[in-house]
């Protein structure tokens, strides 16, 4: 192929190239940090000073503003991992397994926070910290899936093989996401049915939806910025391993 026929890099190529990713992703960090801090400041202010008490739950409705965003992220992060797994298995996209590996610890942390805050919300609302119902049990299983995937990444020396195995298991584990979502419809549960994203619109007043969505955006922007940073760290770690191998080889041959 002559120099004249070399095609320019498409957006997909730019996305796939780790060097290109390190260049363009650097410009995302400051705006994402800014949006995260702004949304947290406004969200906390709305949650504590502008949110009315719920007619049934009273002031404990405020726990929803940290519980629901983390519960949403526990599933959203897994969905990102599942899409990345497809990228790894179908297109062998170099950044797909980087994205998968970087997202797993973040997903585990958000799931842990959802379980913790849900438990503290359950005690005054239902009279118990824990109940083995469909929603809570399937979310606990999601937490263990995250831990299993993190352990699996660490168990392989061959990172390419690890990426393929983790991608397959991530897709198998994705079956749990619709189970979490629809568990409140399929089984008897203490959990209330969907009250925000439902046909016919939300059942909550705007004064409760405003802090809820602001905190939802705050945690989502936080995930996005931490995901980009963790991906950059993984790309750097791979460059470190390459350099170490080269220097070890040079030292052996010298």
């Amino acid at each position: 192929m002559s120099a004249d026929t070399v095609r320019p890099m498409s957006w997909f190529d730019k996305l796939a190239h780790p060097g290109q990713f390190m260049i363009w992703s650097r410009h995302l960090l400051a705006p994402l940090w800014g949006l995260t801090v702004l949304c947290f400041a406004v969200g906390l202010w709305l949650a504590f000073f502008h949110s009315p008490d719920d007619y049934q739950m009273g002031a404990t409705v405020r726990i929803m503003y940290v519980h629901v965003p983390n519960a949403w992220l526990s599933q959203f992060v897994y969905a990102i991992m599942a899409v990345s797994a497809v990228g790894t298995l179908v297109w062998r996209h170099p950044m797909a397994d980087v994205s998968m590996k970087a997202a797993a610890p973040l997903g585990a942390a958000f799931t842990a926070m959802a379980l913790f805050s849900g438990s503290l919300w359950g005690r005054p609302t239902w009279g118990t910290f824990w109940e083995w119902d469909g929603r809570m049990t399937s979310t606990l299983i999601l937490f263990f899936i995250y831990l299993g995937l993190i352990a699996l990444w660490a168990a392989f020396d061959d990172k390419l093989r690890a990426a393929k195995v983790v991608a397959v298991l991530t897709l198998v584990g994705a079956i749990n996401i619709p189970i979490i979502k629809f568990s409140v419809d399929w089984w008897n549960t203490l959990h209330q049915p969907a009250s925000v994203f439902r046909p016919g619109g939300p059942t909550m007043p705007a004064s409760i939806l405003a802090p809820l969505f602001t905190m939802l955006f705050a945690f989502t922007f936080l995930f996005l910025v931490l995901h980009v940073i963790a991906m950059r760290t993984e790309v750097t770690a791979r460059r470190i391993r390459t350099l170490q191998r080269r220097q070890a080889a040079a030292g052996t041959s010298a």
Partner: protein
Amino acid sequence: MPDLGPHAIFIIGAYIGVGLVTIGLVAVTLGRAAAARRRLALLEARRDRDAKA
């Protein structure tokens, strides 16, 4: 601060717990990034030194 009622301990506990995990998550992510950057800079400096020698 509004009156958080008889269940204030649960509300404050939830916010403190989530806050601590969030701060920990940010600290670990930034710490790992900084450590990786330092390690890479060290290796690149060694590579450049070896190339000159």
